[in-house]
């Protein structure tokens, strides 16, 4: 339990800062000021200005908002659909139940970033494309975990007892089974959010994710690469923010898993 607080606090800090971005009185993250391009730290912009004279701190914080919202929305979408499919697959019998989970596995035949690039070719880059791709990529994880958990739980005595009391399937699934398998699903959700942040930043870095001039950590790193010689620090800030966020999320995942996953809890 103690191991949970530190990473949870770090993640909460990043999320809170991102949520409060409009309240912090930051300069407009996309307003250009060419006279001050690559300017060092100064009053009103503590981390200096980027290659278009935009405030780096402001872009960093608004970038967190972009990255995290894309990651959370896609992980939640994947979770909703994946868990539903997993519940159907684990509860029902027959071919359709089997297919609802197994058909998802085809996504796993592709290296994730390549599937993403294929979709970007068809739909063009942008936040909507990113959310679609990331949701599809993390669907199988949720479907598999839910399916496996439902299978292990469905024969338990408390499920049988509730059924004997006359509960319908829907009630059994959502009020009896789901709360009991929520732990592993929550772990999966945290894993998906962390992975989505990584992939979003990678695609944005390639110029195929978030569309400029919207701020995103991947785009900031992409931009700062060109001016690496004059302003190396511009490269360091977004790299540090990204790494810090992912590290905190990974540690949170590990702690959550230790706490919630029955397979590791007993050790």
């Amino acid at each position, binding site marked *: 339990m103690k191991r949970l607080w530190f990473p949870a606090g770090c993640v909460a800090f990043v999320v809170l800062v991102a949520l409060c971005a409009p309240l912090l009185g930051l300069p407009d993250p996309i307003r250009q000021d060419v006279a001050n391009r690559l300017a060092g730290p100064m009053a009103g912009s503590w981390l200096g200005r980027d290659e278009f004279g935009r405030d780096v701190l402001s872009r960093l914080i608004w970038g967190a908002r972009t990255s995290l919202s894309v990651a959370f929305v896609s992980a939640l979408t994947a979770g909703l659909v994946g868990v539903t499919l997993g519940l159907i697959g684990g509860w029902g019998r027959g071919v359709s139940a089997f297919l609802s989970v197994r058909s998802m596995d*085809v996504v*796993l*035949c*592709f*290296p*994730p*970033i*390549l*599937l993403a*690039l*294929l*979709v*970007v*070719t*068809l*739909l*063009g880059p942008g936040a909507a494309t990113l959310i679609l791709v990331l949701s599809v990529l993390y669907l199988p994880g949720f479907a598999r975990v839910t399916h496996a958990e439902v299978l292990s739980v469905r024969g338990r005595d408390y499920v049988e007892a509730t059924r004997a009391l006359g509960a319908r399937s829907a009630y059994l699934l959502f009020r009896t089974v789901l709360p009991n398998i929520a732990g592993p699903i929550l772990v999966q959700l945290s894993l998906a959010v962390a992975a989505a942040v*990584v992939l979003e*930043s*990678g695609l944005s*870095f*390639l*110029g*195929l994710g978030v569309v400029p001039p919207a701020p995103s950590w*991947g785009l900031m*790193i992409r931009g700062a*690469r060109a001016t*690496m*010689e004059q302003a*190396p620090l511009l*490269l*360091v800030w977004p*790299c540090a923010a*990204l*790494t810090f966020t*992912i*590290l905190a999320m*990974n*540690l949170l995942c590990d702690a959550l898993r230790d706490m919630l996953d029955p397979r590791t809890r007993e050790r």
Partner: protein
Amino acid sequence: MSATWLARKLCVAIFLAWLVATIVFLSLHMVPGDPAELLLSTGGTSPDPYAVAELREKLGLERPLIAQYGSFLAGVLRGDLGNSLVDDYPVLQEIALRLPRTLELIAAGSLLAILVGVPAGVYAALHRGGAFDRAASWVTALLLAVPVFVVGTLLVLLFAQTLRLMPAGGFVAFSQDPAQHMKLLTLPAIAIAKGLAAVLFRMTRAAMLDALAHDYVRTARAKGLAPRRVVFVHVLRNALNPVVTVLGLHMGTLLGGTVLVEYVFNWPGMSTPLLRAVEGRDYPMVVGIVLTISVLFLLINLLVEVVHALLDPRIAHS
């Protein structure tokens, strides 16, 4: 490893390759609207109808879907992946030129990761709780958190820009200048290896600790075998199985990471034409490269399974 086991695995791999090809083919048709119009539209403007008609003709979109699918599959089997929409260059020739360079990068990265991750994991497990073990567990947590393109970019910033020890990127053929070739290979290989090395370290350490607790280790020690022999012959041999599994599981990330690393270091592998094609909506080129890398991914996984079965004969018999 029996021939039937191998044949079954091979059949599954071929089935998956067919599935991948089918999905890649269908991807263009799964999107609502006219595919040709979709590929030509940029930022909400509707494209020139003549260009749309021309592209439809070029991609064969006028024909029934099943006929298109048939000729696509036949083309793939013949090794004909069509031509680029941009410069009409055969996709297969582009891949044939680029694939060896990408494979070299993957091989160098994996080798480096194995050479660093496995011995470090063995050492950490043998000196559990020691200074190295504790330091390494933090380093791996950090390595797993840093995205591969961040590592690459920071390596360039540190070694090329600041210390001026290494070239920032580029490519020279091995036959032209072997020393420079290896020098240019070093930083990208490190960037690719970092995640895999961290994963291998963790897995080797855990598997070693698991294997060390078994009775046969005590028996081997009680027989009076040299500690070195116990570790390398009895423990490591058994600990390697889960490590090989992880190697296979991590290949998808590794192949994806290669795309980013090649971009960071201007390594002219598969990612150069891939990214150019994604940006230019050059559909046949994207399809050809995605298909090639995905099939490569399946083949590597098959190879990993074979190695796994060679290491642990129980797998092929179960």
